């Protein structure tokens, strides 16, 4: 049962993520995609006459169950079968993050940055609230995220998804190198 507790190498996790694409299609012509659920939640809870949210969200309610499952999967993988050791990132990344005063990694997320009390600080506000806003705004503007474009779209050899995925990475690399250091130094 050790494999349930230990982290999985990329050559196990990657193919299993890829398998989700045909699995959803075979089960009922469903297309992998998570950012659509953010739109679903808007349509269900705060449609407020916005055209983007005027549709029958109940018809696509399968994806709300899907993300509910992701949450349970996170609970099983991150708590029930939690890896007792911290995520084994490269020593150079650890050294880099330490230069901003971060501790050695414990668990999957730096608790000193992502916690309820840091929400009130400028650093926490930028990392969680501004960051989350950009994720939600950008994915809808791009009509998809890492799963819909990056995994499904690229699996289906769709060139717009290649453009999207390349832009995800360009945006991420730029911010991680040139903006995040200023936020971490706050």
């Amino acid at each position: 049962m050790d494999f349930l507790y230990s982290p999985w190498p990329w050559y196990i996790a990657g193919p299993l993520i890829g398998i989700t694409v045909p699995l959803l299609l075979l089960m009922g012509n469903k297309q992998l995609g998570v950012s659509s659920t953010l739109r679903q939640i808007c349509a269900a809870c705060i449609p407020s006459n916005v055209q983007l949210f005027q549709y029958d969200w109940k018809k696509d309610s399968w994806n709300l169950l899907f993300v509910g499952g992701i949450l349970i999967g996170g609970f099983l993988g991150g708590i029930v079968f939690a890896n007792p050791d911290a995520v084994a990132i490269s020593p150079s990344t650890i050294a880099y993050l330490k230069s901003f005063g971060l501790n050695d990694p414990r668990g999957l997320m730096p608790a000193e940055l992502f916690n309820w009390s840091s929400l009130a600080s400028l650093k926490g506000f930028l990392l969680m609230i501004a960051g989350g806003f950009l994720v939600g705004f950008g994915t809808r503007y791009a009509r998809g995220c890492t799963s819909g474009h990056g995994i499904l779209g690229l699996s289906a050899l769709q060139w717009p998804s290649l453009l999207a995925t390349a832009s995800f990475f360009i945006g991420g690399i730029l911010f991680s190198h040139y903006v995040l250091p200023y936020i971490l130094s706050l």
Partner: protein
Amino acid sequence: MKNIKYLVVGIFFGFVLTKGEAISWYRIQEMFHFESFHMFGIFMTAIPTGAICLLIIRKFNIRTFDHQPIEMPRKEYHHGIIPGSLIFGFGWALTGACPGPLYAQIGAGYTVTIVTLMAAILGTWTYGKIQTYLP
């Protein structure tokens, strides 16, 4: 509830994301600094796996479990792809999470991610509100 099977696939997907550490803020920073092959390895095996399965489905005209023809995914180009994707990339670097991992992080005990998720919902809502003014 015939849709309950999607909950099961979601559990599988969330578990794999978590065990593969794709929901880790540390892993995302490491990836953007090209300091490990891990995340790239995940993408470089997930995509060909999906592609080969789609190829097999198309080649043998495989149908869904309830015998419907399978509709191949199509992604159309539109003007939001590049600016939207860049904006998402900015957020990805800050939160260390794309939308899937947001849900998984909450489940994995990082409860404050609920706030990040609510901010993402607000971001999507704001996009809907100002959509007509954007290119």
